[in-house]
């Protein structure tokens, strides 16, 4: 064989091998466990993490953020920003198509869809947590089919990253003016993303299949199935018995067991999250900051974390996670101090009744604590029962009520029918707490569910949004942390260790700390576990 032939042979062999290797990566199903099921699967009305993860697979934004934390093209191929930082022009890709709606042919993605998404999001009747986040956008205009221009009300910090919001199709919702949770689109959405919704099964499993028309690199894994679990122990068993391949968040108690099991990989991802008891200040008794502070002082958070989560987390002092740039390191968590708690309650006008329960103006300090049933795992049960007991020891009577996830959300976010809730917030790395504590965010399906108002907090939040100075914003956030720690609209509890677990046959896994799945297209399932 002469040299040229040899080289050609080697080249062809290498190419064939590479193609085979690529083909080896395609196919398979990845089943992953979630604590519960999403109420809606669209990016506009949903407000929980389960839905967020799904929308990450189904939809695209104008821009994306890559693994190096750089802003990269997504539905927009390129963009221009004027000198003033107020005009953003996006040039859209021409090869993106929407997932087929029913039996229809897939339709092309155009500038109309971008304009539509923004308008429906901003409509007063659309119930969405996004509205406040995008109030800085003044107008959006279609320049041509593949060019769209956003005009901002004012320049803002890191504006480009805000355009990661997901675009929905104009031909998606039935009502093209505003989107409600009743629209069929929120249950059967279509997007442009690497995966499309196949079905939601009778068991509430959400089945996604790879999009053959995806404009980007085609996804390797053929099918993703989100499986809901109400009990963490059962989910853990499902993983160890190979009924699922991945758990998004491992119960910290299960970490030692998984760490010792060579079949699984434990991958840390630092979601900026924390648990809290949130108070409904519409209840006049809870409208007094002294009462809320007393509750914080009355519970031993260190002990609860140690006893119920094996100490696998960190007690926090305010509205940011310790891994956030906004956390005020000078504000220390209030120590457990029952005597001081009792003193504060007395100062707030409470006196012990004949049954030992505190009273004020003839009304007992009797409160309801609502907990979503998906959180009814052993540790959570212990936390809420401990909370009840701690508060009993200072004279407050707390009745705990476990509720089904959807009913709980309805009760908390729509009806505001509760006194205290136990829940967690998860943030992307902006640490933006405006939707949680600004008074404009009080209302149905808005995040300030407790109705907390403070002119000082409102002012600081607005100021933080107006500044273009990073250090000024840091100063404001430190102040916000200090004020909210003192005002205690929540009893801020802790942030827990976050690990995802997956079977070693799932390869090339890279996880976004907040969105989780943006890089899932390049994951693949290996048939050969021996090379792990």
């Amino acid at each position: 064989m002469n040299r040229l032939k040899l080289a050609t042979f080697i080249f062809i062999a290498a190419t064939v091998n590479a193609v085979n290797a690529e083909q080896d990566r395609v196919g398979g199903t990845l089943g992953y466990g979630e604590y519960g099921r999403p109420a809606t699967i669209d990016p506009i009305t949903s407000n929980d993490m389960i839905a967020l993860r799904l929308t990450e697979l189904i939809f695209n934004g104008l821009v994306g953020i890559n693994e190096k934390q750089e802003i990269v093209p997504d539905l927009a191929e390129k963009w221009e920003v004027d000198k003033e930082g107020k005009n953003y022009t996006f040039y859209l890709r021409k090869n993106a198509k929407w997932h087929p709606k029913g039996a229809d042919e897939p339709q092309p993605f155009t500038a109309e869809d971008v304009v539509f998404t923004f308008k429906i999001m901003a409509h007063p009747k659309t119930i969405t947590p996004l509205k406040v986040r995008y109030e800085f956008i003044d107008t959006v205009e279609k320049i041509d089919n593949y060019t769209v221009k956003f005009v901002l009300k004012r320049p803002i910090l890191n504006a480009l990253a805000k355009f990661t919001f997901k675009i929905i199709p104009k031909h998606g919702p039935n009502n093209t003016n505003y989107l409600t949770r009743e629209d069929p689109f929120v249950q059967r959405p279509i997007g442009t993303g690497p995966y499309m919704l196949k079905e939601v099964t009778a068991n509430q499993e959400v089945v996604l299949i790879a999009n053959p028309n995806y404009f980007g690199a085609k996804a390797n894994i053929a099918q993703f199935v989100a499986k809901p679990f109400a009990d963490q122990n059962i989910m853990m068993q499902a993983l160890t018995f190979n009924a699922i391949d991945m758990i998004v968040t491992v119960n910290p108690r299960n970490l030692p067991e998984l760490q010792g099991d060579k079949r699984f990989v434990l991958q840390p991802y630092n979601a900026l999250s924390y648990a809290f008891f949130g108070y409904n200040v519409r209840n006049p008794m809870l409208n007094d900051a002294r009462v809320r502070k007393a509750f914080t002082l009355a519970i031993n958070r260190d002990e609860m974390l140690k006893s119920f989560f094996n100490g696998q987390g960190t007690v926090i002092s305010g509205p940011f996670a310790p891994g956030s740039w906004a956390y005020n390191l000078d504000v220390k968590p209030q120590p457990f101090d029952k005597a001081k708690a009792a003193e504060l309650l007395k100062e707030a006008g409470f006196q012990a009744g004949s049954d030992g329960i505190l009273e004020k103006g003839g009304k007992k300090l009797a409160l309801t604590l609502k907990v979503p049933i998906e959180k009814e795992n052993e540790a959570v049960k212990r936390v809420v029962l401990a909370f009840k007991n701690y508060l009993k020891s200072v004279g407050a009577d707390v009745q705990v009520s476990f509720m089904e996830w959807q009913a709980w959300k309805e009760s908390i976010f729509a009806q505001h029918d509760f006194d205290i809730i136990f829940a967690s917030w998860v943030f992307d790395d902006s640490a933006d707490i405006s939707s949680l504590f600004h008074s404009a965010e009080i209302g149905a399906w808005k995040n300030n569910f407790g109705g907390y108002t403070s002119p000082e907090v409102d002012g600081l939040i607005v100021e933080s949004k107006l500044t273009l100075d990073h250090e000024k914003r840091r100063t404001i956030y430190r102040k916000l942390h200090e004020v909210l720690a003192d005002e205690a609209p929540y009893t801020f509890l802790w942030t827990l260790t976050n690990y995802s677990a997956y079977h070693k046959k799932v390869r090339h896994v890279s996880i976004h700390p907040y969105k989780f799945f943006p890089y899932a297209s390049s994951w693949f399932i290996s048939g050969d576990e021996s090379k792990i």
Partner: protein
Amino acid sequence: MNKYRLLTALVLTTLTGVVPAAGTDSMTKATKSMELRRYDEAWRELYSNIGTIDASARDAAMFTLASIFHNNAILYKQFYLGAVEAQTDYLNLLLKDKSKNKSKYAPLAAAMLAYEKGDCKSALAALSKMGGNQEKSITSLSGVIDTACRSGRLIKANDLFAKGTATLDATLAAARISYSNGRQKQVVDATLNRAAITPDKVLKDASASGVADYIILLAEQGKIEEALKFVTRIDLSKPWLKEESKDGRKIYFYTPASLSSLSSLYSAAFKFYVAKLSGGGKYNALGSYLSGERSFLEGDYAGAAKILDGIVGKGKLPPRVDERGAVLLKFSRLKTPTGGDVDSAAIELASASADKLELLSDIAWGCSIVGGKCEKFMQLASSKVDVADSKRGKALFSELGKLFELTNKHGKAIALLEMARDKANKNKIEYNDPLMLTSLAEAYRSTKSFSEHLEIYFEMSKYYPAVRIVQDAVQGIYSVEQKSAGDVKIF
């Protein structure tokens, strides 16, 4: 960075065998704190009760104290290196600001940092960016740095003091620079005496920068106990300067010199307490070993070789310590004038017993200290990682991970260091070697995983408040680098 390695496990194993049952409560508490890697807590406990320790336990106490200081010197050096990296990036961000609202103190902080790193060119460049209308304390300090940089090592102490007598901070900075140049110590001592500088005065009037200089001066003057006592009185999380603009913006500046001063002090304290061991006692060989290791860490390879030559392989040390000593000795000899190729030496050491994971981890550590590339060795050691038992292999994962981090292979470093990490207690120093954690934090910072970095330091700060300098800088960088839509979801 990440050149160092704590000897906790090794020393603790040793101590378990040799600490007498007659140990006092204080000894027990200190040993417990040391076991939990809370070295600051450990030395403070033992140091403040050293007078109450029974004569029969005196040597054990001195050795324990020396061991704690040895570990703390290593740890603070690591903190310092991390702080320098983070501060450099953070100050660069502040210096980029050309607006009328730009930071007033950032140029001086950058100059001090550059000077600390031995980079006078950058220090002078930073000083040239200082605006007018600065306070006397700022101009005095900048005057000292400017003079020191322009005049080089031959600067006379009096010339520095001429710039620096205006404020206590500047006086202390001038004294420290003169001392570090090894010149005119008598002049410095006389000037300090005239200025009647006392610990109380420094605590009252000096900033964190002055405090750092004072610590090092005391250590240089051999006043180790006075310096240690002084350290127990200072707030290590206190910023050096606070800048507040008219619109309410506050920027805190910290100085890495605090960390390097403490590392130097703890190193001096180690030597001080090792010297107190009674001759011929059973702690002497171990004390000598640690002295050899300290010399090795400080780059005195000839000194290390001389010490280790006298004890390694002579049946004087516990087998595991002896084995590690042999690695150090080999590397120490390499770095002497008759030395040779580091990678070949590492391979040679490994080939003797390549399946001993502890030995491989010692070699990896040795490679990182002498700054060798050790590429062949890294390949060899990496091949052991896949088959290593997750518990037994932890030291190897950790050392190899640190070595990868040193060579800027952050992805590999993260993968290995994560293997060394206790997942159930991922940030807790009680379960994880703090040097491993800080190396991991550094790797995460390099890959812009800032929240992972910050979580590690958040936990670390509970026992080492001096790391606030790193936390504050990384928070500052993260606030600029963060790219997000401002999303928050209920879970």
